[in-house]
């Protein structure tokens, strides 16, 4: 009895120590800093400074709007892509190639990929040249320094998370359920909306939550593609920590973003649970 107990304690202990050292400790430091003043006294002044200032609410609104739009665009593009990979591709070698194409960009730094988009989306970039050449637009569209530019960058970078999550969910659906639906007289579209889609919701929600969290906390992509014209919340935090060195104010900003995003995710997953059964 004693030996397995010790093994279990050892195994759990390792992860507990790791978790405590690299997650709980830094979070505690940040949280404590956020409720302290410069001289170490407890105060909620930092939070008052954030929440009573319209500017912060404006930045939060931009941040969450970008997060929501990234998630929606990611789902609209990612779901069909996942469907294609799981349901349409019959040749497993081609499916593997597609998945590698999807994952390989994740091995490259965010910075490199965001710079790539800066080049592509620039005034004389490939995208504008193609649009002008095809006659779709009269003159180059300004992408850099607009929310659209940031959105394009974020969707591109976060798309694999949706595709993999939805794809995994779709692959797990028992195909006899769809056959049963067809057998009961449901057209393919009715089968999709009544059986396949509801059963893929858990995977979709997991992917969407992940993408939303990553999008609202993203720093590099918005920073590079904003051209200094748009500010998202993570950029405020970065400024406080790296330029102003106000760890108390920066900590309060971090905790604000964390609490608000967790609250949103909690609401979203409650909705997902209710719909997903």
């Amino acid at each position, binding site marked *: 009895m004693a030996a397995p107990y010790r093994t279990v304690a050892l195994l759990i202990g390792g992860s507990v120590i790791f978790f405590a050292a690299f997650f709980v400790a830094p979070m505690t430091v940040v949280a404590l800093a956020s409720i302290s003043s410069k001289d170490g006294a407890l105060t909620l002044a930092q939070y008052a400074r954030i929440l009573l200032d319209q500017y912060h609410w404006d930045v939060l609104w931009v941040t969450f709007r970008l997060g929501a739009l990234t998630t929606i665009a990611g789902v609209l593009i990612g779901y069909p892509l996942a469907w294609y990979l799981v349901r349409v591709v019959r040749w497993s070698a081609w499916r593997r190639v597609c998945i590698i194409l999807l994952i390989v960009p994740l091995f490259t730094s965010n910075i490199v990929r965001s710079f790539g988009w800066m080049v592509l989306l620039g005034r004389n970039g490939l995208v504008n040249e193609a649009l002008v050449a095809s006659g779709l637009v009269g003159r180059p569209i300004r992408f850099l320094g607009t929310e659209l530019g940031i959105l394009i960058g974020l969707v591109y970078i976060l798309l694999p998370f949706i595709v993999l999550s939805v794809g995994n969910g779709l692959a797990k659906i028992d195909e006899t*359920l769809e*056959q*049963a639906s067809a057998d*009961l*007289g449901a057209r393919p579209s009715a089968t999709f909306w*009544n059986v396949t889609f509801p059963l893929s919701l858990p995977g979709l929600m997991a992917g969407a939550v992940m993408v939303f969290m990553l999008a609202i906390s993203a720093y590099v992509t918005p920073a590079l593609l904003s051209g200094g014209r748009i500010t998202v919340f993570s950029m405020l935090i970065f400024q406080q920590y790296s330029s102003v060195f106000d760890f108390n104010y920066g900590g309060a900003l971090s905790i604000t973003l964390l609490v608000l995003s967790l609250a949103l995710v909690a609401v979203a997953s409650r909705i997902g649970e209710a719909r997903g059964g």
Partner: protein
Amino acid sequence: MTSPLLEIDALTKAFGGQSVLTDISLTVAQGEFVALLGPSGCGKTTLLRCIAGFLIPESGHVRIAGTDVTALAPYRRPLNTVFQNYALFPHLNVTDNVAYGPRRQGASRTEAAARAQDALTLVGLADFGARFPRELSGGQQQRVALARAIVNKPMLLLLDEPLSALDLKLRKRVQLELKQLQEKLGIAFVFVTHDQEEAMTMADRIVVMNGGRIEQIGRGQDIYRAPRSRFVADFIGDANMLPCVRAADGRVTMAVGSALIPLGGAPAGSDLTAVLRPEDIMLMRERPAGGAAAFPVAIEKVIHVGSDAIVVMRCGDVALTCRVRSEALDDGIAVGAQAFAAFDPASLHIVAG
């Protein structure tokens, strides 16, 4: 005569060049209960899936009530299926599962729910509408799957080994209930099973399949009494397979041990086997006088199964089993004893192979 409800005509199906069904022809009448019986891999489920529309055959036709449905999508076919794993929708409760078909046919929400309730009452699950499939036992899930199919009032119901997940006792009960329900509703059932007893209990006619072909179609008793091939004789019920030889003069003799028994009415061909059912053998201590045929055997094992005894014995290099009532077993019939296995030559059935 009206056209049969289901008509399968020279159907073939192959997977990756491997032939799975070869030249299948079969008709099912209105309200008939037909069992597709065979060992696993014999193609019975593939045939069912061709009828349901989940597979499109390479050649041949499937007609339902005179209409060719061979290439029709499953959702356009006037039939329903009870799947082997039931395939209940896990995200819908029992009522919504059963109401799924009526809803797709355009019934209103209340009407579909009322019809679902009727169907659930029919299968004895009237109070289970609000439950989810994962909250039901295997037997209850099986009933929901049945209710979900019959609520659509199909002309034809396909059942893919629907009882294989149930334990023996429950299976026996459900077999009888299913048969009663089928007679009450007058729906034609095509029932896939690998269990010959199940097929015998329920089906009006049995289609014995092997290796993608139909071996024999007929009533259970007829197939049992007059199997057309060695495979059918072996698969349906227990059988003693006794080798026969055809003499130069064309007469067939059964060669068991040193006993040579002349036989009549054998099919053509030189390789023949006589099928002798275990219950047709009588065990005697003395060689019977008169017309009955008999050969000497050594008793190897006596197994008591309920009120019956199964006696395993040997005559030369041929092993035989017989089944008798326990109380009919003579005291002298014990392991190691010598006895005579007697039978009426008329109970023999001779097949090729």
